[in-house]
């Protein structure tokens, strides 16, 4: 197996994911409308309630709109990561997962390629959102748009790997709604996406602790800092560490010898 083999494989997985995405225009709009609703309605309402003091990486007083944008970017990635894992469960039920896994390339590589494909789609959405946010008046430094790219790849992979891991535990599509409620909402609300951590601490020290250790908070901060041309080393290490952990566990969960299928059987066997 040469390097070219790996590249052709990765490319075709990304192309397929991109084509599928283009065919689901509703999904694109849904993915875009969600953060825009937050920005255009929630942020405006909250602007007056929540004053944000000067905290890094910001160097001056900022409007709440500006504070919330990195959190909404991370939200796009969170939803995307979960949606991808949802499509994994769907693919597994529908059998197209089998097509993927029959590839002679190592399974960990196929899973990582699948994650990268999802991340590529989410990054496209993020940039469209950032463009609209710019029109809205949220204008980070121009270079920040470039600097945020590696952060987006890393946080996208981490959230995707979490979704992948969850998808390996979910047996059927119907169970996934529960995962959404128990994962997406707590992760999003108990994080620094909507309000700074010091604000949370004022309200509840316990929630502060939860939020501080929430991987999603770290993803948000990583994105926030890089968008303003700073590096949050703690967040970087956190996100990288969580990525390694989630991905390792997901690869193990999809391992032919140990995984869920070997124990409980694929969809056809359950029938």
């Amino acid at each position, binding site marked *: *197996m*040469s390097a*070219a*083999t*790996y590249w*052709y*494989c990765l*490319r*075709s*997985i990304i*192309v*397929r994911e991109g*084509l*599928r995405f283009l*065919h689901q225009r509703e999904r694109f709009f849904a993915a875009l409308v969600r953060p825009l609703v937050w920005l255009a309605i929630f942020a405006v309402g909250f602007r007056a309630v929540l004053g944000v003091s000067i905290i890094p990486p910001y160097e001056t007083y900022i409007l709440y709109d500006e504070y919330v944008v990195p959190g909404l970017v991370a939200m796009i990635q969170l939803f995307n990561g979960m949606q991808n894992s949802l499509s994994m469960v769907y693919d597994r039920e*529908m*059998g*197209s997962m*089998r*097509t*993927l*896994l*029959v*590839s*002679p*390339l*190592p399974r960990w590589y*196929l899973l990582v390629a699948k994650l990268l494909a999802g991340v590529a789609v989410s990054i496209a959405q993020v940039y469209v959102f950032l463009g609209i946010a710019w029109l809205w008046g949220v204008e980070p430094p121009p270079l920040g748009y470039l600097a945020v790219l590696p952060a987006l790849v890393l946080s996208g992979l981490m959230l995707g790997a979490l979704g992948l891991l969850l998808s390996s535990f979910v047996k059927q599509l119907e169970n996934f709604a529960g995962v959404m409620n128990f994962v997406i909402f707590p992760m999003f609300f108990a994080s620094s996406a909507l309000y700074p951590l010091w604000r949370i601490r004022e309200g509840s020290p316990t929630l502060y602790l939860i939020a501080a250790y929430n991987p999603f908070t770290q993803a948000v901060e990583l994105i926030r800092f890089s968008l303003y041309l700073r590096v949050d080393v703690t967040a970087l290490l956190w996100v990288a560490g969580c990525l390694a952990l989630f991905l390792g566990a997901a690869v193990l969960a999809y391992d*032919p*010898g140990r*995984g869920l*299928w*070997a*124990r*409980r*059987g*694929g*969809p*056809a*066997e359950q029938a």
Partner: protein
Amino acid sequence: MFEAVVLPESPSISAIHEHAAPSVAALAVEDLSHSFGKRVALDHVSFTVPPAGFTMLLGLNGAGKTTLFSLITRLYSSRSGDIRIFGFDLRRQPTRALERIGVVFQQPTLDLDLTVRQNLRYHGGLHGMRPSDCEARAREELARIGLSDRADDKVRALSGGQRRRVEIARALLHRPSLLLLDEPTVGLDVDSRRHILAHVRALCREQDLAVLWATHLMDEAAAEDSVVVLHQGRLRASGSVREVCAETGTAALPAAFAALTAGERRP
């Protein structure tokens, strides 16, 4: 335990399988067992598929055919027993083993919203094929199934029989030496069924392919086929149709199958 079935050597076989001696079985399943929790799906199953020729895997629903296919395609691994594909152990050399397999699953697995060509390209990529090779192979295979003019149509626009043929073309794209088909005619009308079966038989003859065709429909077997009979996770018989009939003292395969699977039926 297992003996490779030796077929008369032909130059074309050795040309195709220059990596493996022609006498090595396309598929050797040895003492294979697998269970899901307490339910035993496969119980010490052993058989071989010759390196060229048509082998029918016969079994009723729930006989363990799909589990067997999942294990052969390494969707998951068995707890005990071995699977070898042209001599390559699936556990130790999965890449070399999987390269040689083409699969058509029971469930349709094409992306309905993508075109035929996009579907084939995706598959070629998964097997690490260079895009230009993939394109050329796709043209060849689509011409063979008579769907060249539909290459840029969405799969959704194709009939059930056409979709199956595309799946067969896809399975052959990377030039496998062993083609596995799991109940490929389920849900098709009589005409499409006959067409698909004839198509795969012709492929098998013309390309010296080894074919393992799983079905519960006895009338799909021909007199010259090898058969493997699976019932309730156990191997009941394997060999030529003639041998299996002789063994059971019956005149034809349906009767032989009935005799082999008579008695305890799963509740």
